[in-house]
């Protein structure tokens, strides 16, 4: 029996060691960048889902001057390459999936600490201010965002993250998928924009599904002012004010936009009796912007509300292969609309 225990520990140890070496070399999430061989590990087709690790490192590598902040809506819709054309600044898309405004604030702080940010575009959605979602969603480690990265340093990874990205069998599977999936492009472009191909099959159903998923993000038993308060009593509008103050303190030119939503989604907001909260939210954003600017004795940041954009009325086609130009689903717009938004924002 002692031998059995010895074999068991040796087996676990060997697996741990071999898996770790393999994962670091293949590097499916583009964290370590030890080797980069075309046809072996150059493309990273399955790096999605680790954006809070990958994006922070990539920002550190790239050192952008302009960042786009927001959720997956920003990740899918706002192209840094186009922003760069308009602004003449090296731009990076720092959007992540389903963040709260607190997480956006922390990512903004991280970006300021680890790059030379001169300008930022902040894409806002009501979901980020839902008090019932609290300050953090479960994937987010806000302490890491306090870190100032150093050359070749991995000090921002927690032990759990290090384990997950280096030694886990899930990372091993992703390494194999990376190895055999080299014919596919990387999930992210180097500038943080998602390299997606519009999978437009049955748009009708896709709208229904995404709409109900997103409405879930907005669920809150409270309405109006109480909607923005977490169960620990933190007002998320105050967190937004902190974000504005941080921007003023660092002399960053910030542009704030309310993301466009399709009419289909707006109808759901009405159905769920959330319209007054939605309007109040926009009003509070404007007031916060004015108030913080006054505190810093400067002009408020530019604010544009795209929530009722002309393209919000694009007809949802029926049938399996019908495509849409401006929408991926009920709340993710495509870069065709994103480019128009950036153009309108920076030409005003």
């Amino acid at each position, binding site marked *: 029996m002692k031998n059995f*225990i010895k*074999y068991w520990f*040796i087996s676990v140890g060997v697996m*741990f060691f071999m898996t770790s070496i393999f994962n670091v070399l293949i590097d499916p999430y583009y964290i370590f960048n030890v080797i980069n061989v075309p046809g072996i590990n150059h493309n990273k087709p399955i790096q999605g889902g680790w954006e809070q690790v990958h994006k922070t490192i990539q920002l550190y590598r790239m050192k952008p001057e302009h960042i786009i902040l927001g959720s997956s809506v920003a990740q899918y819709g706002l192209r840094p390459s186009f922003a760069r054309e308009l602004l003449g600044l090296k731009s990076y898309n720092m959007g992540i999936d389903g963040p709260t405004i607190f997480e956006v604030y922390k990512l903004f702080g991280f970006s300021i600490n680890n790059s030379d940010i001169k300008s930022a575009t902040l894409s806002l959605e009501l979901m980020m201010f839902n008090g019932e979602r609290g300050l953090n969603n479960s994937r987010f480690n806000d302490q890491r965002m306090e870190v100032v990265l150093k050359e070749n340093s991995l000090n921002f990874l927690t032990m759990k993250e290090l384990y997950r990205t280096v030694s886990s069998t*899930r990372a091993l599977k992703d390494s194999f998928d990376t190895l055999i999936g080299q014919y596919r492009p990387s999930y992210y472009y180097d500038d943080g924009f998602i390299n997606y191909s519009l999978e437009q099959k049955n748009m009708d159903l896709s709208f229904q599904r995404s709409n109900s998923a997103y409405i879930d993000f907005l669920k809150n038993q409270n309405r109006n002012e109480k909607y923005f308060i977490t169960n620990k009593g933190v007002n998320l509008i105050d967190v937004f004010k902190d974000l504005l103050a941080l921007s003023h303190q660092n002399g960053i030119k910030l542009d704030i936009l309310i993301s466009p939503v399709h009419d289909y989604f707006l109808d759901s907001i009405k159905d769920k009796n959330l319209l007054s909260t939605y309007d109040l939210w926009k009003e509070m954003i404007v007031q916060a912007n004015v108030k913080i600017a006054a505190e810093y004795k400067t002009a408020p940041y530019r604010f544009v509300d795209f929530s009722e954009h002309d393209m919000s009325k694009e007809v949802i086609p029926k049938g399996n292969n019908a495509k849409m130009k401006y929408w991926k689903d009920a709340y993710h717009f495509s870069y065709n609309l994103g480019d128009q938004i950036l153009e309108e924002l920076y030409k005003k």
Partner: protein
Amino acid sequence: MLFNSYEFIFIFIPLVLSGYYLSDHLFNKTIQKVVLVTASLFFYGYWNHYYLPLIVLSVLFNYFSAIIIYNQKNKAYLLFAISVNLFSIVYFKYANFFIENINHAFGSSIIFEDIILPLAISFFTFQQISFLVDVYRDEIEEIDFLDYSLFVTFFPQLIAGPIVHHKEIIPQFNKASTPVINWEFIAIGIAIFCMGLFKKVVIADDLASNVTLIFSNIEQGQFVSFLAAWSGAVGYSFQLYFDFSGYSDMAFGLALLFGVKLPINFFSPYRSANIIIFWRTWHISLSRFLRDYVYFTLGGSKHGPVRKSANLMITMLLGGLWHGAGWAFVIWGGIHGALLILNNAWRSLKKLFHIKDSETEINYRICQLFTFLCVTLAWVFFRSESLDGALHMFWIMFGLEGINISHKASQFLTYLPSIFIASDMIGMFEPIGDAPTYATKLIVLYLWVIFLPNPYELFKLYHQKRLHSTGFKFNILFKPNAGWAFLLAVIFYVSISNIGSYSEFLYFRF
């Protein structure tokens, strides 16, 4: 702290094991027990330290009560002590339920504070009640405070059972074993823990996403197809099975690491060919408690078939209520009570008319499948968030909202009733995303639970009253060699990679 967490596996267990064996080596058994009680209290308090005083007070109260009962054999005091225990469980677990029903019945608006259910209160309270009764019945030879504290708080069984008797555990700690470390127990303990961890984090947690999606869609009144509703119910059946079986294996394996063999609590219940066998193999220690302390106290089967049936029904209703403060749990208990009564009646009829069971394989498998279906249907009440939700689920499962079938199949069913609706693949399984994979998983899991040996069969550990190893097809036995070590290391490695952010065991909420 959860068994399926990195802190527990990589920090807590190595530290406690080292402390446990070193303290015996350097000091004596008393210090060894102190180490284990302290670690167990830390384990309990890690979840919510506000409830630590509750378990400590409960241990103190029951210890002193046991001393009084032991010395005086006073039935009145026994009843008083049991009442205090029941009061604490009623306060924490059922107060809101009773008040809600009073408000509903009388139109009153009594407000009661939201109380967080202290972890494991149902388990440690029942265990202590059984101890008090055992003391009164003269089944306990001696009461030692440290032994008693260890009996209640021993962390492998503290949170979700098994509900053990004092005599099953404490003599094992007091045995002057030589050599001190039982390597056989440790090897088997590691192996069974790995298997349990795999069941929980790789299988049960994986099933949870689709099950949650289907049941929450039902609650919200969103569309769920006929096939999705069935796969949701069957999926939950397996989620609960692998969750609780995983927990029970982990508890058993952990106890073995400390040289203690816990009673088996879960023994392939879905292999049962009738509901009586099911209750002998599912949550065995709870069934035993209900039988010994409720059913027998009510008179058991002594007073004729009608009284026996009534006793059975009362026991199962209380068993349902033990699982949670809600009418759905009571109904679930009632369904099982009714099934047990029917099963007993059928047995009596067979005896009366000299009907012999067909002993063919096919008959046995049909009975297994039928028992599984009955249990699965009853779980719908167990899982649904509301009674309305459960009824809605049944409505869909019995085709009363239409049955989506493929376009091809619909061509052949032209003359059938209009409940059949032609649909594409997405509509047939809405809202499940990858239906073929999910359906395949459920079939494979069914074959697993029916045909593969459980860990206790694998390690020949099932020498327990009323447990019979029958029904599995592949007679695999564990051998302590490099091959098995490697296989179990792979299982462990895959499992720890799948540990999610926070995934509580389903039985923690009972």
